[in-house]
């Protein structure tokens, strides 16, 4: 079974993964057995009963009710076994343990953001402790998204009009990919994130540390980190090319024409306003799709971003 696992399935990063994989393996080997049987018989018959010399002879017809019943009953039993097995695992995937820590997940075009009960927030990177059940309470701000972590074998649609729930308990530390698996438009295929699983003590430290540049990190470098972490890079290029939003190259101090025809010079206050209230003043020629980062970014994060944008000259 290990051979199928390494070929087909990603690493098992959660408590449910091995169960899901075991059932996958079971179906895989049964299917392989029957598939080889079906193919072998087909090929054998084609060789053995090949029409010779262009003549075909009439042969008496055989009918067998016993055979028909056999190949109805045996697959039915096997399928019921698979159903019950899958059903049990599905129940486990859906019953959230009582001692879970809860994280609020928000999907929107085109990034994930997280709110912890302790007040911490995050974008893109979901930081969780190892060995502790985590409940994700999820909703969307626009269209339907779907939260998928292959290594944990979990997936749940994220809807605009209600909360959906999924949970996992990571069994190993490391970083694992998060994908959006419900088509949501232009940035769908880049709505990536990572789950960063930390040992409990490091996680606690992370939770307390909050935000701000690390030791010895300049505001500009911190801003560069925020630029990627908060998925600004999904819509804003650094090389002058036009994307969903205006490029950041040479943005600071540039004169931009707004959609209402007025022109302004990009300064610290305009950047700050655009992050927190993006619909207030928009550069002409772009769709009004920028989401607000109110409640997600702290002042220090915006300071870092401004420092970073200032550094991006032509």
């Amino acid at each position: 079974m290990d051979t199928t696992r390494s070929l087909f399935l990603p690493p098992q990063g959660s408590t449910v993964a091995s169960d899901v994989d075991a059932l996958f393996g079971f179906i895989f080997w049964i299917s392989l057995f029957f598939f080889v049987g079906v193919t072998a018989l087909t090929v054998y018959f084609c060789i053995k009963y090949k029409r010779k010399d262009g003549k075909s002879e009439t042969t008496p017809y055989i009918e067998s009710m016993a055979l028909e019943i056999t190949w109805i009953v045996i697959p039915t039993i096997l399928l019921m076994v698979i159903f019950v097995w899958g059903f049990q695992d599905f129940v486990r995937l859906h019953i959230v343990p009582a001692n879970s820590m809860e994280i609020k997940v928000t999907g929107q075009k085109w990034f994930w953001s997280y709110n912890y009960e302790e007040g911490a927030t995050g974008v893109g990177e979901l930081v969780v402790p190892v060995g502790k059940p985590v409940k994700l309470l999820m909703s969307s701000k626009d269209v339907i998204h779907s939260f998928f972590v292959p290594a944990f074998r979990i997936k749940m649609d994220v809807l605009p009009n209600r909360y959906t729930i999924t949970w996992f308990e990571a069994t190993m530390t490391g970083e694992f990919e998060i994908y959006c698996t419900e088509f949501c438009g232009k940035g769908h295929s880049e709505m990536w994130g990572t789950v960063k699983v930390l040992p409990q003590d490091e996680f606690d430290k992370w939770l307390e540390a909050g935000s701000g540049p690390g030791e010895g990190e300049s505001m500009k470098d911190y801003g560069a980190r925020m630029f990627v972490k908060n998925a600004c890079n999904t819509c804003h290029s650094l090389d002058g090319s036009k994307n969903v939003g205006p490029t950041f190259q040479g943005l600071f101090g540039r004169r931009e024409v707004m959609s209402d025809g007025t022109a302004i010079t990009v300064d610290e206050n305009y950047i700050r306003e655009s992050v927190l209230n993006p619909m207030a003043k928009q550069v002409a020629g772009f769709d009004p799709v920028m989401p607000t980062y109110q409640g997600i970014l702290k002042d220090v994060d915006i300071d870092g971003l401004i420092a970073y944008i200032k550094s991006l000259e032509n």
Partner: protein
Amino acid sequence: MEHTIPEKHYLNEATGWKSWLMTLDHKRIGILYMIMVMFSFFLGGVFALLIRWELLSPDKILMGPEMYNQAFSLHGIIMIFLFIIPSIPAILGNFVMPLMIGAKDVAFPRLNLASWYIYVIGFCFAVYALFTGGIDTGWTFYTPYSSESTTAVIPILTAAFVLGFSSIFTGLNFIVTIHRLRAPGMTWFQLPLFVWAIYATALIQVLATPVLGITLALLMLERVVGIGIFDPAMGGDPVLFQHFFWFYSHPAVYIMILPGMGIISELIATFSHRRIFGYKFIAFSSLGIAFTGFLVWGHHMFVSGQSDLAAVIFSFLTFFVGIPSGIKILNWIATMYKGSISLDTPMLWALSFLILFSIGGFTGIVLGTLSIDVHLHDTYFVVSHFHYVMVGGTVMAIFGGLHYWWPKIWGRMYNETLARIAVVMIFVGFNITFFVQFIMGTQGMPRRYATYLPQFQGMHGFSSIGALIMGVGFLLIAIYLIYAIFKGKPAGPNPWRALTMEWETPSPPTAGNFEGQPILEHGPYDYDKVIPENALKPYKTI
């Protein structure tokens, strides 16, 4: 024995473009459909190749994400609504089914022609959408994305809506034809299995399509006048749209595969020259699939936010769809036992179907299993699964059927060697394209991605090579089949020495199909009693 083309037949009895565009002859309408549907297949294929080209690299090659989203949406919409749903019923069902039951025409010839015109109108709407903003919602039109998208959603919904009516009228026509116009003495259990399959398909067309119609109409109203029933901001529910959509679109999957299964039954029996094993089981399994197909739509929605209880019930019922398909496969193999098997081109398509559809079926079990589907839903595993069923199943059957009935339709034979090369190319190319997608899927590669993480590049590249091989294969088929229409060797009335009624008329048939009313003399698969001898020449084997 050399054959000649009969002097008068349905192709030359009337001439001029009007005799085609105003025809009421089911055979000519079948050919009109063939032209439109095969052109759609070509269009959809071009989009498929564009997709595979773009996916050679995670970076942009030809198309940015917006263009890519259009390409996969158009590939899906064209292949499903314009190609695969009408393909077998409208082309081969129209041409062959009345001949098989000894009828002069379908019950309502004018309605039949109207269906074709409705199809053409739907086609025009789709093309109009293509040139006025395209479509980027995927073929599933999920709200609220589809209510917000700035592409030409309304024309494409209109196209699907209109095409639905074409499908309903075809289905209605066929049900009545099969009920009322069978040759004297032909009981239900003497019907060829292709007719049974067409009948089961027609039932689904008639029962499921109106619901799609109303769903698409609601979605259009949502966009145009903002009735808000799928809009969460107005108290509506986007998951409700998914229920409505899949209530049609899951049974629609059986509209696509059932007629294919019918063709395979004909091919296996004819080329094994053997009475079909378990006739009633195959016939009733078609009806069984049609019935259970209506009860399993929720298995597309295991992670959509529908209730867990609903998910469990849908999963349970889903496994029962697997059983009738399994019955068919095993009965076909049992038919070959002690047969007299000839590996002509149509039979090679049938064998490809057996192998590829089995893989499609087994992976369907994987996806029907609740816990595993949570992992695999909306990944490349699903993409690969439905291509194994739809291409590995239905498309193999369509081409098997076209090769089988080509001499009947045009009276001429195609080049057997080229045909065999083509079938091998398609089989190999198909497996290269799609098998690797199972592995990508289990590893977590989501579908509808314009770009991807670098670890998948090798597999995507491999897959694209297969697509190219398939593309060349289909091109080859188009070339030799069209060549055969004009320059092929005359085939004679019954080149395969088959026993179903369509082989008792000349090839091509006369305008009225039969001289007088044909009477049933033997069952469709009485190979244990008779083997017709009016063949092209002593039977060829490889």
